């Protein structure tokens, strides 16, 4: 039955990743908690898994005219430099506190976004966004 659980985790991860919700967490949790895989190995598998899934999602989203290529080009360039630099420095700086600070930021930002979404309007009242 483990292959069924793995397939379900991968399917859910594909949906969330395609929705831009960062679904990698689902697969990493499955691989570490249920498939007893080491964290680093799980992260690596999740990264490789993400590449074709993201490529397919990106092709479909581009076809649906949902990707703002002009806006994201600078982010891709600066992000690539940052990722290359952080990959080289990953073992040289203590990342524990940085990770904890980022976690607190995510919780606070998520809570704020959730409250804001309820303040704005209910889904029933929501009109379609202008195209």
């Amino acid at each position, binding site marked *: 039955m483990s292959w069924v659980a793995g397939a379900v985790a991968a399917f859910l991860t594909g949906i969330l990743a395609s929705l*831009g919700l960062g679904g990698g967490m689902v697969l990493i949790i499955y691989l570490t908690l249920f498939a007893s895989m080491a964290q680093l*190995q799980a992260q690596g598998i999740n990264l490789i898994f993400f590449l074709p899934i993201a490529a397919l999602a990106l092709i479909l989203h581009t076809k649906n005219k949902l*990707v*703002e290529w002009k806006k994201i080009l600078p982010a891709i360039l600066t992000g690539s430099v940052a990722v290359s630099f952080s990959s080289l420095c990953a073992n040289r700086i203590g990342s524990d506190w940085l990770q904890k600070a980022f976690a*607190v930021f995510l919780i606070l930002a998520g809570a704020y*976004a959730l409250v804001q979404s309820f303040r704005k309007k209910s889904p029933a009242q929501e009109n379609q966004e202008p195209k």
Partner: protein
Amino acid sequence: MLAVPLLEFDGTQTRKAHASSIGITLPLSVISAGVYWYKGSFALKDAYPYLLPGLAGAVLGALCLKKISSIWLERAFALVMIAFGVRLLVK
């Protein structure tokens, strides 16, 4: 996690921000995956069993993104942010 709110802050509509964020994370993931692979942290074949169901999920996700209410998308993203933050704190 940062790309979506920053794109929205820049005036991008919610659906487009989510779709465009994948365009940012994909090339960055290629670089990260290259580093992981170079360090020998995993074997490529370990990812194979998850690819087909993952691709099927990606197609469903892309269909959903066209139709999903942006307010529910915002709420789902907020919950994912909180869950990811909690996981980072307790792992």
